[in-house]
């Protein structure tokens, strides 16, 4: 099954001020993606920006692939200019997947990290305790969808415009501290500072923690060695051995 093909922009619009949802219809049959996998998307029509950009799959439905992204740098600014009917080159699905959760689990999403976790939540409705952190209420995109598939949603924002004011890892630390039963496995995706904080929170606890990492990458297929992360067994490629790693393996 080819993992490199042309796709047509089916729909492309803002879901909030900084976030866009891009729905692509691949023009040839592609491999079925698993929760946690990602795609490399052509970001522009010329050689600048040159490299494709990695995006977690947000949703797979009716033969389309949807990506939720935040307009942040040159690549996403350029990607945001693609219009309905335009053609985009796509490589994927790439990387490993979230391990299949056995029973209930905790999901920790930071900002746009929800894009990667939502496909997991939708695969196992009613089983996730979601800790969702963002800068502000405006950035808590997909709130309704999240509520529909999660068992509970605990929100923290930096400015207090939704949920608790503060960081979501603090709320998680309180929850873990109060829990007397064996801890539920944790699935996390978000900015690196959040994941590092999570690393600290779970360091002395008996808990399986799967984190999906984000790194700048040139190829996405394991060739360039640009996207490595330091693990207890040396550098590992985020695009190939990841993006999902066991927190205990990370040499943070």
């Amino acid at each position: 099954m080819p993992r490199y093909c042309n796709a047509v922009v089916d729909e492309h619009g803002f879901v909030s001020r900084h976030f866009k949802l891009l729905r692509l219809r691949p023009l040839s049959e592609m491999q079925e993606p698993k929760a946690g996998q990602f795609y490399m998307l052509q970001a522009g029509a010329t050689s600048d920006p040159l490299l494709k950009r990695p995006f977690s799959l947000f949703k797979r439905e009716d033969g389309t692939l949807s990506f939720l992204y935040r307009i942040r740098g040159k690549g996403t600014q350029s990607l945001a200019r693609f219009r309905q009917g335009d053609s985009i080159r796509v490589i994927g699905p790439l990387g490993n997947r979230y391990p299949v959760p056995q029973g209930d689990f905790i999901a920790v999403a930071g900002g746009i990290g929800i894009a990667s976790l939502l496909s997991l939540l939708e695969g196992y409705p009613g089983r996730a305790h979601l800790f969702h952190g963002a800068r502000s209420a405006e950035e808590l995109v997909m709130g309704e969808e999240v509520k529909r598939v999660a068992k509970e949603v605990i929100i923290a924002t930096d400015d207090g415009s939704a949920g608790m004011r503060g960081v979501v890892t603090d709320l998680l630390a309180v929850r873990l501290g109060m829990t007397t039963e064996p801890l539920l496995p944790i699935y996390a995706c978000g900015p690196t500072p959040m994941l590092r904080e999570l690393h600290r929170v779970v360091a002395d606890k008996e808990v399986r923690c799967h984190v999906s990492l984000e790194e700048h990458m040139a190829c996405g297929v394991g060739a360039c060695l640009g996207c490595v992360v330091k693990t207890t067994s040396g550098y590992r490629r985020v695009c190939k051995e990841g993006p999902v790693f066991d927190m205990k393996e990370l040499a943070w």
Partner: protein
Amino acid sequence: MNLSVKIGSLTLKNPVMTASGTFGYGEEYSEFIDLDRLGAIVVKGLSVVPREGNPTPRVVETPSGMLNAIGLQNIGIEAFLRDKLPFLRRFSTPVIANFFGDSVEEYVSAAEQLSGAEGVHALEMNISCPNKQAGWIVFGTDPKAMEQVVRAVRKATTLPLIVKLSPNVTSIGRMAKVAEESGADAVSIMNTITGMVIDVKRRIPVLANCTGGLSGPAIRPIAVRMVWEAYKCISIPIIGMGGIMNAQDALEFLIAGARAVAVGTANFVNPSATVEVIEGIGHYLLDEEIPDINDLIGSLKMVPRMQS
């Protein structure tokens, strides 16, 4: 139509190979293209001792290019021969082992280890590394240091020996000549150009290594010029590379004097770039009614320009 070219004693079915460091050990791209279609596969640079590579960030995009400082991360020659080479032996495409060292002795032992292996058809020396025994001077930027290491490796192998030249020199023609006189069977032109990107907000270099190698279409005109200059100075074959994204780009190198070309950064952008380049060169030869690619090589016309 003949697409076949010769690099020393090595015959390639077409002039398109992969550039070292952009194609892993072949496996990563084998699901995207048929490796049998390539002229040659140049593998990720190897050293006697495995290398962990640089801290991250290792790559950053630049206008029409990218800067990398991977730090020559590799599994080492022993692991390559044991774990990676058997896969490549399944294909008819010749394998060119790119290698490096940080002393003349290390280059020599790397060349010896690779030369004995079944399935290694040629060697490509990366000389853009510093010599730890001689004040860390980069072999490829000093004619004497280069001559010494190329001569030593020449004695250590009977395989076709390709020297990958650094563009970070004043005269590429002179360096190419030194490589030829030291026993190289061919030269690759060119390696990446040293560059730097600064994060102005934090006032730090973006790459953890501070500097990195610039590649991609941004450097192509420089590479074409260097091939053209070297072609006038040497008689051994040149393998041209630097920002080749499509057949048109590859043809520039061939016309400038390259006997073969390597596709590098383009693989990252388009996993089937190599095959598209091969097909495009074929179409061009048909359109231009050139029966043999060797008739195209170095066919640049220097015509007087009318001044108005």
